[in-house]
């Protein structure tokens, strides 16, 4: 059994507010100095899901990441955690792709890998929170897709998936191969030790460029019109009255006037 996990390198969503800067002309977030990028937290959950399958079924786990100037020390964490191989899709044309183009490149890489019984992704990346890529990979590969999984098991050649819904979870059965997007309810990535990180350096790491996939990313389907940090303005107005009842009535009128009631 072979499992592919897509992991995305993103800016740390927990960076201090003061460090978050936007270049509004280029419509991009400015990478801050002194704050390392991280693996998108939901993708870490996806990696954990893959490793649990490996623990039970001795599957081979391949981690796949796409972008430009990817951080080796960061992404080798996947190998340290237990993945058997890391493939970096690294090219200048892979930078700033929208979800559909990303899915197209990742699907091309999965086709090149050959066998992928299960493809795991996070339910959404913690930078743009679109939640499209996993489903779009399934579409590209023509595979069934189950989203927002909180528990995954392989049982008699079928996937049994607990899927998060608004008021609990539902159990879904899917054939192999399939694509599964994973939720944080599945649990965090297992602890990685210093020894794990050191031994990860000996595991195979491949770098594939656009040419290796015999493709160039398709044009974006989404256009980013504007990118800005919303301004928060606070205006304080004191509503007075001769009696508390009068003040309350005036307050209610004022709130209705503003459309809050």
């Amino acid at each position, binding site marked *: 059994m072979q499992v592919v996990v897509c992991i995305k*390198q993103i800016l*740390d969503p927990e*960076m*201090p507010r*003061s*460090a978050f800067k936007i270049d509004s002309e280029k419509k991009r977030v400015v*990478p*801050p*100095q*002194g*704050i*390392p*990028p991280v693996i998108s937290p939901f993708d870490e959950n996806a990696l954990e899901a893959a490793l649990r399958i490996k623990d039970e079924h001795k599957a081979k786990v391949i981690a796949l990441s796409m972008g430009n*100037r*990817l*951080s*080796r*020390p*960061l992404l080798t*964490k996947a190998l*340290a955690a237990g993945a058997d191989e890391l493939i970096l899709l690294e090219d200048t044309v892979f930078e700033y792709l929208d979800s559909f183009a990303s899915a197209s490149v990742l699907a091309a890489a999965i086709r090149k890998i050959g066998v992928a019984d299960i493809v795991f992704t996070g339910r959404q990346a913690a930078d743009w929170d679109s939640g499209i890529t996993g489903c779009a990979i399934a579409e590209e590969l023509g595979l069934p897709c189950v989203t927002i999984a909180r528990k995954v098991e392989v049982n008699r050649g079928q996937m049994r998936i607990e899927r998060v819904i608004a008021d609990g979870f539902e159990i879904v059965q899917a054939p192999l191969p399939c694509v599964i997007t994973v939720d944080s309810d599945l649990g965090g990535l297992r602890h990685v*030790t*210093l020894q794990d*990180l*050191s031994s990860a350096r000996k595991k195979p790491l491949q770098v594939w460029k656009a040419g290796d996939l015999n493709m160039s990313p398709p044009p974006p389907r989404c256009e980013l019109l504007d990118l800005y940090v919303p301004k928060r303005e606070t205006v304080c107005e004191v509503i007075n009255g001769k009696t508390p009842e009068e003040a309350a009535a005036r307050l209610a009128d004022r709130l209705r006037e503003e459309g809050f009631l």
Partner: protein
Amino acid sequence: MILELKDYVGDMKRCARCSLCKWPPLAQMKSWRFSNNCPSIARYNFHSYSGGGRMALGLALAEGRLDEITDELLNIVYRCTACGACDSSCKYNAELEVLWPIYSTRAHLVGMGYLLPEHSMIIESLRKEDNTMMQPKADRGKWAEGLDVKDLSKGEKAEVVYHAGCLYCYDPELSAIARDTVTLLKEAGVDVGIRGSQETCCGSIAFQLGFQGEFIKFAESNIDDWNAAGVTEVITSCACGFGIMKSVYPLLGKEMKFKVLHITQYLDELIKQGKLKLSRSLSMRVTYHDPCNLGRKSETYVPWKGEEKKVLGQFILREPEKIVHRGWNGIYEPPRNIIRSVPGIHLVEMERIMEYSWCCGAGSGVKQTMNDLALWTASERIEEAKSVGSEAIITACPWCERNFKDAITEAGDNLMVYDIVELVRQAL
């Protein structure tokens, strides 16, 4: 953000590769044997390991001239205790920033995702457990168990909060010093409290390794907590904590309603006021090691922004005038005053002291991640201490003490190591 490599491009470009950063100023040099000031260049003897070499490397990085960040480059960048000796030596003649470009180079690399696995572990521990020791957060207050002291995290009020710091909290051998410190303060009538298991790291190692995002979180949270506790003074006996609170915390722009003091400043005052009477004679010849973060690195840093004008095609004039931190205003006298107050003790000075002091080797995460460099650096200082006939080396920082003790154990030496608080307790 505090650390931006581009802010130091001017300084890095003006580095003339004169190599004066590698030694104490000539006028301060007393012998060939102890004429180095930078552990990194002294050990590895290749220019990139020096302050000037690090400036060249930082400039190449800032200008995007490095196609590849190799493991060897990261090794060079982090085989440095960020002791700031290069900075003080350079500023003897010039006004270039050397230490802050070193910090900023690290922050730049961290932002690009180039991390050493060992550092990732420290930062992970900070994130999860609020300490750099990879120990459970819940155990942080254990050092104070059974000690009759107010716990501010439980709503009790005190005038002064004692911040023990990660190493004192978790090192079983050293935590007795933290207990002694609180006992001393209470005996002198100080209204002191601690934050027990709610105390968190000062963020010093995160800052020095270039993880400034993590540093900002811890620094802001500490400032908020101390402001909310209503204390007028924060006392720490960790020089690393003191240095960062004094030199970098003010740059965050948050109001600090308290004064930051190192325990040596506080004890010096208590002795002068007669609240602590050192009466027991300790017949011993000792020397004092200046911790970098208590000495040259404890001046509040003021980043300069303005216009540089070249005069006569040669001199640079800055408008507004730049405040240059030469390490002159560190805490040098209070610890020496305390030692001199101990009856019978004979304080002898080593060759490299105060702003030109040799580092103990433990700073900037080197002790945790590159212990070979840390121990070698400490062994050099131990040799220097022995060369002046000292029986004991006194310091005022747990990291220095830990590293000296480890180096002495490894070498099978017999030099004694004391924290200044241990000395005071013995002399009471």
